[in-house]
């Protein structure tokens, strides 16, 4: 009589929670592998983009830095000086006003102050060169 109660059964029947656990674990592993593949693809994309931009930056940076330094040292002061003189000239010669107006260099006749400066402010210090690896 008691032999029916002690009869061994299959593992799944014996413990349905174990089967659910195994299925869940397989699913988690599958999802993890999928996310790793996606992340790896993203890594490759970022790596390629970074290399491309680094090459561009390495090519542009020396010339641009030199050009910006030259501009800040020589061109910008000369331009500002010329514009100041032109504006001063425009105060005493109203027939020159159209030229000043064309370049948005209007002179306020009541105060003599310039409404807007001509040249944009000199650019800020150039960005540092990219680090070589």
């Amino acid at each position, binding site marked *: 009589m008691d032999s029916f109660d002690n009869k061994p059964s299959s593992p799944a029947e014996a413990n349905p929670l174990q089967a659910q656990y195994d299925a869940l674990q397989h699913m988690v592993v599958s999802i993890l592998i999928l996310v790793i593949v996606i992340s790896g693809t993203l890594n490759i994309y970022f790596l390629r983009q970074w290399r491309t931009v680094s090459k561009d930056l390495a090519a542009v*940076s020396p010339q641009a830095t030199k050009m910006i330094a030259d501009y800040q040292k020589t061109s910008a002061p000369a331009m500002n000086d010329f514009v100041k003189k032109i504006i001063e000239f425009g105060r005493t010669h109203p027939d020159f006003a159209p030229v000043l107006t064309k370049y948005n260099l209007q002179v306020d006749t009541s105060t003599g102050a310039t409404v807007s400066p001509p040249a944009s402010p000199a650019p800020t210090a150039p960005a540092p060169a990219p680090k070589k690896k």
Partner: protein
Amino acid sequence: MKNNPLPRVLLGVLLVSALASVVLCWLYISNTRQLRTLQGQLNIINNNRTVMATLANDALEYSKKNPAIDPILESVGLKPAKTGTPAATKPATK
């Protein structure tokens, strides 16, 4: 229940990959920002030079009608200086 180490290993790999993504993304953004800053500054410089060249041309045109502006143009080298003596009008040779 079995203690399967595979999920832990995969989680570790995923963590490393995610960190690498963050680092590479930061490097890419940083370099792109530097490049755009440089290009923006060069654009400003070129734009300023173009505007100043046009302004200088207009001033030269104006000087044909009103030579009073000549001293300004001469001071910045847009026009050869007039000293009144014929010898001085010759270009300097260095």
